């Protein structure tokens, strides 16, 4: 008999060590159960998602297409890789609480086009450049994927993507461009737009479509 098996035998039902082991096991099992959804998205998957998104962005900015065609491509990329409903709700902020579900659906659609056009135009300025993923790490309750945009005749700049799977699918929900946070900027911008329309969400939805 080996030494460990001797020790095993001595662990009777009332032995405190046995209880500690059982308790430890229960906690461990609990960890696995509770932890499973939270860690379903790992750092490699987050990196892979942004790798694919960036691959499509690079293909678009070097495609030589017209501006309208490029903006259309960007809207497609945004729809496939970004959690648009979550971004839209966060950008609308507290006003989203009192909006009806029909209004939220209409706002989300209008916002999708608005954000794709706005950021598509910025990405279009990267024409001839290349974006590369440089790293990925867990951050708070999500993942941050770092990338660098290399543009002709300019210092490279820092582009970070915040990725989560809490919508049920792996999606990015924020882009940080040289420290400037898209969600924060859009919360300010959409808030100002709503103020200008005296809180009229329907007017905002209508106007977003033409911006």
């Amino acid at each position: 008999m080996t030494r460990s098996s001797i020790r095993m035998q001595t662990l009777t039902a009332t032995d405190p060590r046995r209880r500690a082991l059982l308790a430890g096991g229960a906690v461990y099992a609990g960890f696995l159960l509770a932890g499973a959804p939270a860690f379903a998205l790992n750092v490699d998957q987050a990196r892979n998602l942004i790798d694919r998104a960036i691959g499509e962005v690079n293909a678009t900015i070097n495609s030589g297409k017209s501006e309208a065609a490029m903006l259309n491509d960007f809207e497609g990329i945004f729809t496939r890789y970004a959690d648009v409903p979550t971004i839209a709700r966060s950008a609308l902020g507290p006003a989203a609480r009192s909006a009806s579900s029909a209004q939220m659906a209409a706002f989300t659609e209008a916002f999708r086009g608005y954000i794709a056009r706005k950021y598509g135009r910025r990405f279009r300025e990267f024409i001839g450049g290349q974006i590369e993923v440089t790293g990925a790490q867990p951050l708070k309750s999500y993942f941050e994927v770092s990338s660098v945009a290399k543009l002709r005749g300019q210092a490279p700049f820092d582009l970070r993507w915040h990725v989560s799977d809490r919508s049920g699918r792996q999606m990015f929900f924020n882009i940080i461009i040289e420290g400037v946070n898209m969600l924060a900027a859009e919360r300010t911008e959409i808030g100002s737009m709503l103020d200008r329309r005296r809180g009229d969400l329907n007017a905002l939805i209508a106007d977003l479509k033409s911006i």
Partner: protein
Amino acid sequence: MLFCRRLTHFRRVAPILGLGLLAACAAPPPVADNDPYESSNRRTHAFNQALDTNLIRPLARGVEPVTNGPVGSVINNVAGNLSMPSAILNKTLQGKFEDAVHNTWRFALNTTLGIGGLFDPASAMGLTERDADFGGTLHAWGAGEGAFLMLPVLGPSTERDALGKVVDAVIDPVGVALHSPQSGYARGIKVVSKLGDRARFGGTVDSIMHESADSYAQTRLLYLQNRRFELGQEVGDDAFIDPYANPYGD
């Protein structure tokens, strides 16, 4: 913490110099909405918008054929090289000696091989610019950013960074070394280089300055977030929005 001890002494005379913003040794975390001068800042911003519409944007578009071409890159190179001595000085004052040495090599290479800074062989060798200014030096010494300020012509800043600009203008080694008319040429080159930037980033500048629903609020947010990022400052919780934990952000 040598700078800390120096600073405690400095802090005693700081109020006399009007440097009330030098509050602690480690720079305090930025305050989200520190904008007590908002109403006058907004007036200055309106002035800057009008100035951009009526003068800067048309000028930038006028010189774009030049700044966009090879002459433009020469102008950019010279302007960048002229800013190097000041960056070296500030990196040294910040105790970032590796960056200071890096910038010194860059300046030496571009001034010699690059024929007085007309060309930029240093970047091709991986010695890209590591910018620094006295606002960043004040940050390294423990100064908080102070209130947000909108400066006429120069645009968004903070109390700390505006003071930094004044000090930079005085201590710039190039400014000390050059006399009229060379100093005038140097200034002219920097202005043309800035106009080139205005043209190159035209779409971005227009979208923030002229198309935004509240362009003052956007400018302030963009400037502060970008500046804090540049200085490697601890970002406040507002920068890490988690829309899943807090869907309405309130």
